[in-house]
């Protein structure tokens, strides 16, 4: 009897240690207030419906889940990229201000696009103009994404700027960052939303300062292409 008990104990201990080992391997969750076995919340309505339909919801029902973030809503206008962009605009935690600025920028985009729309004479020209500011935003971010970037690598005491491929996430970050930097670089009399709207429209048409900045980076990469094999070895 005692033997069985100790065996069982042993087994449970083993399982626990296995689990812990597996967890420590998968991720270290840094400063997170949640233990690593908490799963991310599913807050979008259609995703929830899908879960209920294919029965996944039953499985997830008893797994501890993180709370959704304050700006993750089930609104039909929720967009992950826009949420990210808004957080990049934010300075010292003033999220309501960031939201206001971005909304105003979108309004400006829409107004100037509508103005163009009403000015356009032929149906063909009218169809070309994108009126949805969110779509303009996505187009702008896509157009500003670099495909390469330069990283300094030391070889024989000399630092070389080596072109390396870029991950999707980083390229998106750079694109958004450049858009915001271009919008903050302005005269004092111009407001941020106005400038941002201008930059977004420009970038969505594949012109403007941010697209030029991306092209400059590519140009530099091209000039340094001889160092490409100097990557981490």
């Amino acid at each position, binding site marked *: 009897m005692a033997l069985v008990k100790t065996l069982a104990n042993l087994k449970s201990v083993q399982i626990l240690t296995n689990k812990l080992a597996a967890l420590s391997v998968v991720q270290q969750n840094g400063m997170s207030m949640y233990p690593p076995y908490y799963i991310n919340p599913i807050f979008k309505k259609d995703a929830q419906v899908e879960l209920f339909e294919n029965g996944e919801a039953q499985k997830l029902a008893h797994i501890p889940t993180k709370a959704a973030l304050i700006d993750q809503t089930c609104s*039909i*206008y929720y967009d992950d990229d826009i949420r990210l962009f808004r957080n990049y605009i934010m300075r010292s935690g003033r999220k309501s201000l960031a939201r206001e600025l971005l*909304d105003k920028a979108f309004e400006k985009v*829409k107004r100037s696009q*509508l103005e163009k*729309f009403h000015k356009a004479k032929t149906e063909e020209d009218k169809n070309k103009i994108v*009126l949805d*500011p969110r779509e303009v935003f996505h187009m702008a971010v896509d157009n500003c994404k670099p495909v390469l970037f330069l990283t300094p690598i030391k070889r024989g005491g000399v630092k070389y700027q080596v072109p390396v491929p870029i991950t999707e996430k980083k390229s998106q970050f750079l694109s958004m960052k450049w858009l915001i930097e271009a919008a903050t670089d302005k005269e004092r009399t111009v407001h941020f939303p106005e400038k941002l709207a201008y930059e977004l429209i420009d970038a969505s048409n594949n012109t403007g300062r941010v697209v030029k900045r991306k092209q400059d980076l590519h140009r530099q990469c091209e000039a340094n292409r001889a160092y490409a094999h100097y990557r981490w070895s």
Partner: protein
Amino acid sequence: MLKVVSKEVLGARLPKNIRALCVATHSQKFRTSEDKPSYHSSSNSAQYYKIPQDIRNQLFAHGGIPKSYNIQTKSFAETCLMVREPSLDIINCIKSIDYSKPVNRFVLYGKKGSGKSLALAHVVHYGLETGHLILHVPWVGQWMRYCKEYSNSELKPGNVDINLDAANWLVHFKTQNAHVLSNADLVIGQDYVWSKREKTQKGAHILELIEHGISRVKYASSCVLGLCMEIKELSKKGKCKTMVAIDGYNGFFYPKTRVYTEKKEMVPPSKVTVTEGFLEVTKFDWNNAVCVLTVDEIASAKEDQLSHMPKYLLGKEGFEHLDPFIPVAVNEYTDKEFTSCMEYYRERKWVQPAPGQDEELSFLSGSNPYKLMQICAGL
């Protein structure tokens, strides 16, 4: 979906030309082609009508449409107003008024952004169409809280003039009433002595008084006062029908203004020269006229915006001044009005159609017209 079904049903039974007509009216349910407010009836309620550009220029070139809506009209490339219950009610009442009886006073009230000013604009359009002489003040708060310049009055010692704003208003009045002012019957009933050399004589046309105020800005405030008195007298005599339309009327009774004397003391509105004239034309002791006023929280300072009810906003003095009046509530959009508004926005490409959009936006805005406009701006 509905549209498709109706098309199919219609296609089966009706001849082609009638079918086309039906489809057109069906898809344009939120619009009416009737651009004359006097023909608007309850069947047009919640529909948009377009104000022709020339009328818009005449009526609202110097204010009258709130700033935020003005920007909207630019983006939409047209000026449209929704026909709503409050303005329809007032227009219906005005139609059946006996003008020989003392003046009726309508007071529009409602929460911030519920559409009081636009209801007033609709009524003013009606006034223009029916040939009223329009005494329209676009926004009293502009005078009491954001006046451009103030000086002690020469003609009325103890009073303060706001001459630049008064002159602006005279220009506004002149452009608005271009259709009536050509009438030669409108003559002044008393002498106005401005200074030793300048005076406007009895029997001169009312336009002379206005012109004098515009060219000699120094006397603009007194001109406004004189003009109000003259119009009152002329209406009493039956020379003209008058419509008084004042937005933010409670501004005349709100004690805190930003008008100061030369000693930097705050001037109560009763000491501002123009106030007297407009208080005079909102009294009941004349006829051949109708008053449409709005009371608005925004005309008072932020700390005093506690209620939107006329009794609170007008105060004891103002309430007694207007008593008895006809209160007209301007409420949030009804469901029908809301869908009509969203349809209009979609037609103007202001918002992109998306499933479940209407429910969400109506929930977020609480069906408040101004809030809805703001929320839709960023979408």
